[in-house]
């Protein structure tokens, strides 16, 4: 690359682009002042939302110009990333990218590209979205940087293993697999933890080799500390929803969770969530409710329906139903106690072995039961997500237990997190209306 080209790219990535994004953010914040609400049944968007949007847009902007400047790693959402951040990698989360495509409603077009290449419609729609983007070059984020390294951790599903095999075959770059044996009982076995630890050590060695530098313990600890602080803040924000009425909804959390997933070891993430916590606290002090006139409080299980976030939120809010908690957003907060900055290696092993998706259906039911108590919930919506078997299997029994033992209305809502062809508004509206009636009857 010529020096002039490099300087031009640097100027765009570091000066022009960020300045343009700041203008967009200021405009959004200005417009938000006069906003009455997204709908008469929902509170205004959080004031920090444009800041989050700016952070994410800057992240993708930087990614656009990262190739050749920084080493790039594509990682799964549950992968241990603190060592990668400490080694200076730019991180790309294909799952987050797919979710952006879902909210931008371009996922189906991209899925069809992957399907034309032979990938079955029965495969996860995140995978099909991203492969479609890869094969067509189309993406709402401008351009994805080519990876130097791929890191897949099986703690969320086996799907990522196959997905990253396809990516490794396409890009011809090293693939690191961190295989975390599924925890059927309460505790992982010692040999499973040792196995996970050995793989994290191997992953660090490969990442060092690709990066051409050695991991410095102090940097690693500092990143782990920031990860823990950000995770704690995220958990604290969600816990504020124990307040009645809830200051924010799970839909707000879905929109604002991107930094905790893809930037959790960074200082700006801590600043952002500290500001978000302040705003949530202010809402509680001033009596702002996510759903004005909140009548019922419910739990959302599984990934959101990205392409109908707003529609579902409004549909429920019209009936006075506030979705105040979610097992999905909670997953990025509940591991905070495991993260110990003074023992990053040991704590990472546990933190990355114990995500909700790497544990049994009974554990998830107990998590839901605890959340029902903590958040004073009246019912549960279980999104039966065709594209996420590990999250969805067990939901039918969980629903029966919630409705039976806990006497909470529990709805199984059939959909798909990214493929809108598996969702119909009418059917969802009918199901949600029936659910609302069950809540009314119980009240």
């Amino acid at each position, binding site marked *: 690359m010529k020096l002039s080209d490099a300087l031009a790219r640097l100027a765009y990535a570091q000066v022009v682009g960020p300045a343009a994004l700041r203008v967009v953010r200021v405009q959004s914040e200005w417009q938000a002042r006069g906003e009455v609400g997204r709908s008469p049944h929902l509170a205004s968007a959080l004031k920090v939302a444009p800041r989050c949007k700016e952070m994410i847009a800057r992240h993708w902007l930087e990614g656009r110009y990262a190739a050749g400047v920084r080493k790039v790693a594509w990682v799964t959402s549950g992968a241990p990333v603190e060592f990668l951040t400490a080694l200076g990698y730019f991180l790309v989360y294909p799952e987050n990218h797919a979710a952006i495509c879902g909210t931008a409603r371009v996922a189906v077009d991209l899925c069809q590209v992957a399907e034309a290449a032979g990938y079955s419609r029965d495969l996860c729609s995140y995978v099909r979205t991203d492969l479609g983007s890869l094969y067509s070059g189309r993406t709402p984020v401008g351009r994805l940087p080519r990876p130097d390294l791929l890191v897949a951790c099986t703690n969320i599903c086996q799907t990522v293993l196959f997905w990253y095999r396809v990516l*490794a075959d396409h890009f011809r770059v090293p693939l690191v697999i961190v295989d975390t*044996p599924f925890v*059927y009982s309460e505790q992982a076995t010692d040999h499973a933890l040792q196995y996970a630890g050995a793989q994290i050590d191997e992953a660090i060695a490969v990442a060092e080799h690709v990066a051409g530098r050695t991991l410095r313990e102090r940097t690693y600890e500092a990143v782990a500390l920031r990860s823990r602080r950000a995770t704690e803040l995220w958990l604290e924000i969600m816990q504020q929803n124990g307040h009645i009425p809830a200051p924010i909804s799970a839909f707000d959390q879905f929109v604002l969770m991107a930094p905790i997933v893809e930037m959790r070891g960074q200082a700006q993430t801590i600043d952002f969530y500290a500001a978000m916590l302040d705003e949530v606290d202010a809402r509680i002090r001033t009596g702002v409710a996510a759903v004005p006139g909140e009548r019922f409080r419910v739990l959302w299980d599984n990934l959101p329906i990205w392409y109908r976030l707003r529609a579902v939120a409004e549909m429920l809010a019209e009936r006075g139903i506030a979705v105040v908690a979610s097992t999905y957003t909670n997953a990025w907060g509940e591991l905070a106690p495991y993260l110990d900055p003074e023992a990053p290696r040991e704590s990472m092993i546990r933190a990355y072995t114990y995500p909700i998706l790497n544990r049994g*259906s009974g554990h998830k039911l107990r998590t839901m039961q605890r959340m029902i108590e903590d958040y004073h919930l009246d019912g549960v919506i279980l999104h039966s997500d065709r594209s996420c078997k590990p999250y969805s*299997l*067990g939901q039918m*029994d969980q629903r029966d237990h919630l409705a039976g033992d806990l006497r909470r209305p529990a709805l199984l809502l059939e959909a798909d997190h990214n493929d809108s062809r598996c969702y119909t508004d009418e059917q969802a509206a009918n199901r949600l209306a029936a659910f609302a009636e069950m809540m009314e009857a119980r009240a």
Partner: protein
Amino acid sequence: VAAGPEIAARHEVMSRHRQQGGQIAAVLPVYAPRALLRAYGFLPVEVWGPPGIPLAGGASHLQPYVCSIVRNALSFLLSGGLDATDIVLVPHACDSLQGLGSILLDFVKPRQPVLTLYLPRHGGGSAGTYLAAELQRLAGELQAISGRAPGPSELLAHVTAEEEADGLLAQLHSARRALPLGNVDFFRLTRSREYLPLEPFMRSARQALALHQESPFGGKALLISGVVPEPMQLLQALDERGARIVTDDLLCGLRRLCPPGRSRDPFVRLAESWQSGPPDSTRGSSLEARREYLLRLVETSGAQAVVFHLVKFCEPELFYMPSLRKALLERGIPSVVIEVDLNDELSQQSITRLDALLEMIP
């Protein structure tokens, strides 16, 4: 085509084993250490579905987008189909089997103890150490249930005996072209390894090998890849058309035929053996490894076309399809994908596609 050796039916074998004081293990796909189960007095009986059973039970626990092997297995268990078994072993081969194991343990809680086995997806040395320890953990559970405590040498004897049986199975596959058995008979024989005790299986295998003919099969030769050759109509249809499956890349077949390990420690030896098995989707093998393996199989077997026989919603298999088919296409080897639900008859459309494939073979 000659008649294959007589093979006892599954229920007869089970009831005979029980009469002799043995216990029975229902074993779900894909890989389970038969040697360990036998060492603790269990007859391993594999449960690949079974096909064609009422789904009411499973449908109240599992969504319709779960594969029929898992749905049928749960329905079968709930309808009493596994009542004659004493334990249920659910190895971890995919997200659906993971979910089944978890649901059985946490919600269904059948009368039989449910045991699990996590097989590593990482290819490195740490995986071998982990697997040996995981097998040892499983052995501890088997010991607690059975009350038996075989020592290391007894365990090793069981491991080597299984290796010998696998050796015979490998010979059957190698001699496939020279064996005058139709597709249905051949698979009935090789799949009897899924439930027969060692001796009867080895006896049947030797009987079949004795049928070896000097002039090998010269008709249309196919390779079958995928999960399990059910429903059997597929094999019947091929028999009726004079086509022969000369080798397989099936999850229930050659893909889990692993070479013997070398260690004298039975657990390490089992782990070594499993780790050196052929590339496989449920292990998360690389695309390249699977492509090369499949192309080599085609070449060494003389197969002229490939039938991918998939069970609907089988995610591990589906991920590899585009790459495998492309590699075959580049070599000029025709292939077809037939997706089935274990409860459905083989569709006329599938038969038409098979016919089209056979017509492409000179």
